[in-house]
């Protein structure tokens, strides 16, 4: 630890000290600690904590399903908007009792908004994922529908209508699974 400001001031200060007392007193002028080992450790800890912290906290998507009921609820077929997810993650939709048609994930949002605005609160969305569809695709569809929901609420509010969401998870029948495979 050679040099440094403190060292250079040394002669002047000693002279000043002599004026006041006859005794030769060695005055300590500052001191230095070698910080290198400390800095090493601190950096080590810092990198450790930086690597181990996960900045992404999981978020949740709220889902509610109806209670188990024995009797089936009669639904007007014309108001039924059914969404299917095939085993390979492809998305299909159908209106009423029409044949399922393929639809891209990117178009689902505008389609959901369009259909809901056409039938207002009467439209019932039924979601029928195939049992072998990837879970990631299911959540993606739910996410898109949630986004569409915000848009629908906004548009209906402009017309003074209160939104009542009608959405349900529906079990897919084996026949429908087969039908989707052929599409």
């Amino acid at each position, binding site marked *: *630890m*050679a*040099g*440094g400001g403190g060292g250079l001031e040394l002669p002047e200060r000693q002279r000043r000290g002599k004026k006041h007392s006859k005794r030769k007193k060695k005055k300590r002028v500052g001191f230095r600690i070698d*910080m*290198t080992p*400390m*800095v090493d450790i*601190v*950096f080590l*800890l*810092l990198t450790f*904590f*930086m690597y*181990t*912290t*996960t900045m*992404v*906290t*999981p*978020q*949740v*998507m*709220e*889902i*509610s*399903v*109806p*209670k*188990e009921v024995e009797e089936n609820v009669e639904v007007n077929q014309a108001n039924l908007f059914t969404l299917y*997810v095939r085993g390979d993650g492809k998305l299909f939709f159908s209106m009423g009792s029409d044949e399922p048609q393929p639809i891209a994930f990117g178009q689902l949002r505008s389609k959901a908004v369009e259909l809901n605005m056409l039938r207002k609160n009467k439209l019932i969305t039924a979601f029928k*994922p*195939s*049992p*072998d*569809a*990837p*879970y*990631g695709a*299911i*959540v*993606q569809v*739910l*996410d898109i529908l*949630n*986004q569409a929901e915000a848009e629908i609420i906004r548009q209906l509010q402009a017309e003074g209508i209160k939104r009542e969401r009608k959405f349900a*998870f529906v*079990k897919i029948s084996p026949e429908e699974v087969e039908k989707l495979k052929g599409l």
Partner: protein
Amino acid sequence: MPKIKKKRLGFVIDMTPMVDVTFLLLTFFMFTAKFKTEAEAEQKFVIKRPYASADTSKLPDKDIAIIKVGIDTLTGDTSYYYTIVNEVQRRQVYDNLNFTTEQRKPQVKVGLDLLDQLIMQTRITGPRTRFAIDGDRRIRYKWIEDAIDVLRKNNATAFNFVTEKRQ
């Protein structure tokens, strides 16, 4: 006239500002660090959560029971894992089901039958406990469907899907 060259004998850098900043960062990261829970520390799978758009609702850290559907990193098998976050409640549930000492882990690997019993006991011991399904995005929907059916059977009709924010 030859110039007298001053020989430099090493040099000193004042490390103080750097150390200040480093300590500040260190304390920041130390305080924000969230350590793995007991259950997560011993699990042999990493859940790749499904992506969803940004949402403000975060996973609550108490009064929650999590059904994890994970793919084992070694064997590649999918299975259900069940965790009750509240330790007191967890002990109560395990007592009610007469769990052996080896079974009393913070996170238990379960089949659908045991999952059903565990959820029922969770509902009994803590009616306000919320449920979350933490599934891997690569698994088949069947796994989630079955878990939902078990929840429905136990009258837990409102639950959460754990997702990750799409970057």
